[in-house]
């Protein structure tokens, strides 16, 4: 087939010129890019590709143009020796472009790593410069912050109302705050604090062993209720939490941090509430029984007295009936006490001077009791004004307390009755103190229980204190007891002062 040569010639020559122009333009663009970011290896790659393509374009296009010109001139044979050089340069330029591209991906990945390392190095360098320039200031700031933190924690430690205690892992004291010193009964921080062992402050040493085992096993102990020795010899109920710090439990060393809260007041309140609940239950039961027994006793007493009228004085029958009458009256007295205890009979309250009542009672006691060797003293606070009370019932309470005190001191001792005010003058206190042997701690919880008595059989019914308790509660007051074995007992009657007389 015969085809026109013109299209090929035009495309060849025109294309060659365009190739030269565009490849040179591309090279300049790549150089411009590289000037913007000389250290960017991607632009370096593009520059090398453009160099190779320009060489290829110039070599090939110049060759083609020359070839077409020679063909037009009829001198095609001159192209023959030039052709291998043009072809070789083209081949070389292809190889350059291919090689640069082939190895570029790897180079680019390595370059990325270098750039990242350089950025990290520069960042570290900047930080190092900053630290060098500001080291002194930074140290000063940190020291100040540390001192402030230390001060804050020291204030918490010193100011805490609960005991904060640090012991070694073996239980020997290392540090304790002022509240802790007070709780442990130490007046000031001893020099040889580490010689004290925490267990020596426990009322029951086995409680310390149980706590220590718990801490050793779990690393901590939480909200354990234990009894510590109180400075006055009593026990003090505390809530204790602690944890092992520092070394692991398998190794020696480390410290135990304790936080100890005094809950003695809460415990006493709890026990008082339990006691009140118990007495209320017993009171309900007693009042039910007393009501049922009281009526038959009245009938028995009535008929006994009727029968006694018809009997001759001094006869055996009259003597028997009198015995019945006496025992029935005794039973009625007990029933009456039970009813008093159960608060079934409301007190007839009138304004009375408490000091006059106390004086009457003391006079009565002195008249009717054997007080040889026993001294009764009275110490009155005359600021206490008249109180709303049932005089007879309060007298009964005071007689009960004084009779108990006389029994407690035995044949020789001292009893003191004092009056005073408490709760900012809103309550009056009558305190009966004896220097007897005191009440055993195991009996303390039961002294207000009905029929509980430490007296020999026949000498006490065990209703005195329980009846007194009921009477005082019925007056809106309270009765409290403090006793130290070997140092005596003090009962305090607390009665409200009427609003007109308490200064309000």
């Amino acid at each position: 087939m015969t085809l026109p040569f013109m299209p090929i010639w035009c495309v060849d020559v025109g294309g060659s010129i365009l190739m030269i122009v565009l490849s040179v333009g591309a090279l300049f663009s790549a150089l411009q890019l590289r000037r913007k970011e000389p250290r960017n290896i991607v632009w370096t790659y593009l520059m090398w590709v453009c160099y190779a393509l320009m060489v290829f374009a110039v070599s090939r296009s110049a060759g083609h143009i020359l070839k077409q010109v020679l063909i037009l001139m009829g001198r095609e044979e001159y192209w023959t020796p030039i052709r291998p050089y043009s072809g070789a340069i083209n081949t070389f330029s292809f190889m350059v472009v291919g090689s640069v591209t082939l190895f570029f991906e790897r180079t680019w990945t390595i370059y990325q790593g270098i750039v990242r390392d350089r950025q990290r190095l520069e960042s570290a360098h900047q930080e190092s410069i900053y630290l060098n320039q500001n080291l002194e200031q930074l140290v000063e700031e940190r020291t100040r912050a540390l001192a402030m933190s230390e001060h804050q924690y020291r204030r918490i430690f010193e100011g805490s109302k609960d005991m904060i205690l640090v012991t070694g892992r073996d239980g020997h004291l290392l540090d304790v705050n002022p509240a802790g010193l007070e709780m442990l009964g130490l007046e000031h921080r001893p020099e040889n604090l580490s010689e004290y062992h925490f267990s020596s402050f426990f009322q029951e040493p086995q409680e310390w062993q149980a706590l220590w085992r718990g801490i050793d096993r779990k690393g901590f102990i939480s909200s354990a209720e234990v009894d510590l020795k109180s400075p006055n010899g009593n026990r003090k109920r505390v809530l204790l939490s602690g944890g092992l710090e520092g070394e692991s439990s398998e190794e020696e060393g480390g410290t135990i941090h304790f936080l100890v809260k005094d809950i003695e007041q809460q415990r006493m309140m709890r026990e008082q509430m339990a006691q009140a609940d118990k007495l209320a239950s017993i009171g309900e039961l007693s009042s039910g029984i007393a009501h049922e027994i009281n009526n038959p006793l009245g009938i028995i007493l009535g008929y006994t007295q009727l029968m006694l009228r018809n009997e001759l004085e001094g006869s055996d029958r009259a003597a028997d009936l009198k015995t019945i009458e006496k025992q029935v009256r005794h039973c009625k007295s007990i029933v009456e006490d039970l009813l008093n205890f159960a608060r079934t009979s409301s007190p007839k309250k009138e304004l009375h001077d408490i000091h006059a009542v106390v004086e009457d009672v003391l006079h009565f006691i002195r008249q009717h009791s054997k007080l040889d060797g026993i001294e009764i003293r009275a110490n009155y606070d005359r600021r206490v004004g008249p109180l709303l009370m049932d005089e007879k019932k309060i007298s009964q309470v005071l007689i009960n307390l004084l009779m108990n005190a006389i029994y407690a001191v035995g044949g020789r001792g001292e009893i003191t009755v004092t009056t005073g005010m408490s709760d900012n003058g809103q309550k009056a206190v009558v305190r009966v103190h004896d220097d007897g042997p005191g009440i055993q701690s195991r009996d303390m919880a039961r002294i207000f229980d009905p029929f509980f008595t430490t007296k020999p059989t026949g000498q006490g019914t065990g209703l005195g204190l329980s009846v007194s308790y009921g009477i005082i509660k019925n007056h809106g007051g309270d009765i409290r007891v403090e006793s130290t074995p070997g140092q005596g007992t003090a009962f305090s009657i607390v009665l409200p002062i009427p609003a007109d007389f308490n200064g309000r």
Partner: protein
Amino acid sequence: MKAVFVTILLLLALPSAAAATQGHAGPEGLYAHQMAHLFFMFAMGLLIYWLRRRRLIDQGGWRLIQYAALFFILWNLDAFVVHLLEEQVDVLSISRPERWQMRIETPANWSWVGVVYYLGKLDHLICVPAVVFLFMGLRRLIRAAPQGPTKGALP
């Protein structure tokens, strides 16, 4: 130094048989050239793969450079076929009976080879767009690049 340079030029310009080395006459130059075309094609394919893997084609400049690489692959294919056909003297005979005419002779039923050869000779229709895309891509990269020299930021 100058003497060495002149000697190398003479050796390149006037090649002659050397008893101690193997001769490279005949088709070896053509084979090397064809292999270079294939290598160029492979490199451009690799460039496209790399641009796509690095997600650089999300940027307009690199997308145009990707098109340039694609056109270079097509051009290499075209050039490779044309070079191959020029060496097939059994199926293709080319002559110039007139200055502006081209005669392509092929065996019976092989006339399509002549058409392929004729169209393949118009290879600038492929390689010129390739360089145009390359140029446009570079210009767009210049516009997107930060102003002034930087400390080697990653693209």
